[in-house]
């Protein structure tokens, strides 16, 4: 009986292979867009947050306060509410509110302040004296950012990116509910709404596997880059 059910489940899943593959691609797309936005916009934002802190290179209470407040504001939204609130913006940017590309808009919006905070926190771990040494040698602010801050924090930044990727793998499942597609969406549509427990279990196992791989790769890379 057990074996029969298991065999049936396998056949069932095999017949769904194209759909599963499609879901994987949608998830990858949502994650890729969100991560690129996080790195391209959240990264610089995190650097500015760090440098505008009291005692840092561009200490500025107002800039730091305003940016910090804005980042907290966006981060306060439960993701599903943020997504709904951003529907007009999504329609404006993508022209639709359905599909992985549309879902990538609120995902990016949430990923930017999230990553900014992670970057800020990572940079804080660099000893102030190292930055000061670079200042004393006549390094420009840009040289300090690129050659000192980012290089000294590189292993921590990779760890931050790993955390972000895994969090957003799970956010992307929520985005799936409103038509984003992806692995989480497949699990909900088949596994939850149609009571196909085998699909649900398979999708969860797939996500478990992906998370393990991301974390493993992140740890490996971070420790390889860490010479401290």
């Amino acid at each position, binding site marked *: 009986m057990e074996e029969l059910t298991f065999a049936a489940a396998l056949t069932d899943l095999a017949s769904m292979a194209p759909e599963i593959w499609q879901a994987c691609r949608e998830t990858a797309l949502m994650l890729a867009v969100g991560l690129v936005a996080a790195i391209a916009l959240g990264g610089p934002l995190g650097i500015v947050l760090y440098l505008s802190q009291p005692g840092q290179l561009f200490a500025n209470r107002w800039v730091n306060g305003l940016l910090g407040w804005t980042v907290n504001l966006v981060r306060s939204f439960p993701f599903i509410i943020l997504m709904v609130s951003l529907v007009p913006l999504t329609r404006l940017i993508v022209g639709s509110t359905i599909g992985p590309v549309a879902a990538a808009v609120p995902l990016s919006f949430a990923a930017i302040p999230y990553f900014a905070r992670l970057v800020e926190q990572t940079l804080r771990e660099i000893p102030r004296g*190292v930055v*000061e*040494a*670079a200042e*004393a*040698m*006549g390094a420009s602010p840009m040289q300090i950012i690129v*050659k000192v801050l980012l290089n000294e924090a590189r292993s921590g930044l990779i760890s931050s990116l790993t955390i972000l990727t895994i969090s957003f793998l799970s956010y992307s499942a929520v985005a799936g509910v409103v038509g984003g597609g992806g692995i989480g969406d497949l699990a909900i549509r088949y596994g939850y709404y149609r009571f196909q427990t085998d699909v649900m279990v398979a999708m969860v196992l797939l996500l478990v596997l992906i998370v393990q791989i991301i974390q493993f790769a992140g740890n490996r890379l971070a420790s390889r880059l860490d*010479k401290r």
Partner: protein
Amino acid sequence: MIHLQNIRKRFRRPDGGWFDAVCDTSLSIGAGEVFGLIGFSGAGKSTLLRLINLLERPDGGAVIVAGQDLTALDAKALRRARQQLGMVFQQFNLMANRTVAGNIAFPLEIAGWSAADIASRVAECLEIVGLADRAEHYPAQLSGGQKQRVGIARALAPRPKVILADEPTSALDPKTTQSILDCLKDINQRFGVTVVIVTHEMHVVRSICHRAAVLDAGSVVEVVEVNGAEVDARSALARSLLEAA
């Protein structure tokens, strides 16, 4: 080489009051000299040193290095001037993710040297501080004394006129201290680099300084001459520092 004219610096205390770290101090340090700044904790010696390369900006007065008033320079010109002023730190402040060679190359990279010039200068500096066999090591793999040698090589790399050393041996054991002092002395004698060294140990003054300013509560109490290991001190403070050593 270095003229500090009536410089003042005060800091805001956590209780809202002001702390005078350096009050109306003037000091002249000659080219090729090894000059000590000595005093007890809180005497203002580190602040005075950091005022020379404007890591601390004075509230008043002029900082003239090699004929140039640093306080009058804009940010870009100040960066250029700083490339002529090497600095060595108590906590070394090396970049952990760069190799020994990479750390020494850093000031040359920011000064815009070519890769070939950097490579040969780095090799030269490694030779001078006796770490030629450690070029590809990371700071974490070095002892304290070796880290400080890297710090000295890094300060020396851009052929500065002046090296500012902020308690360079305070984190090291006595034996290593001596070897680091010898290294600084050697650099001063071979290349004529002016060295300003902050310390709380009279021993350091005795072993490498030509002259030293004795500081207390933000003021220079006396400038002492050092002849051989003899320190000709008049003030009670200088004497007490001598005895403590």
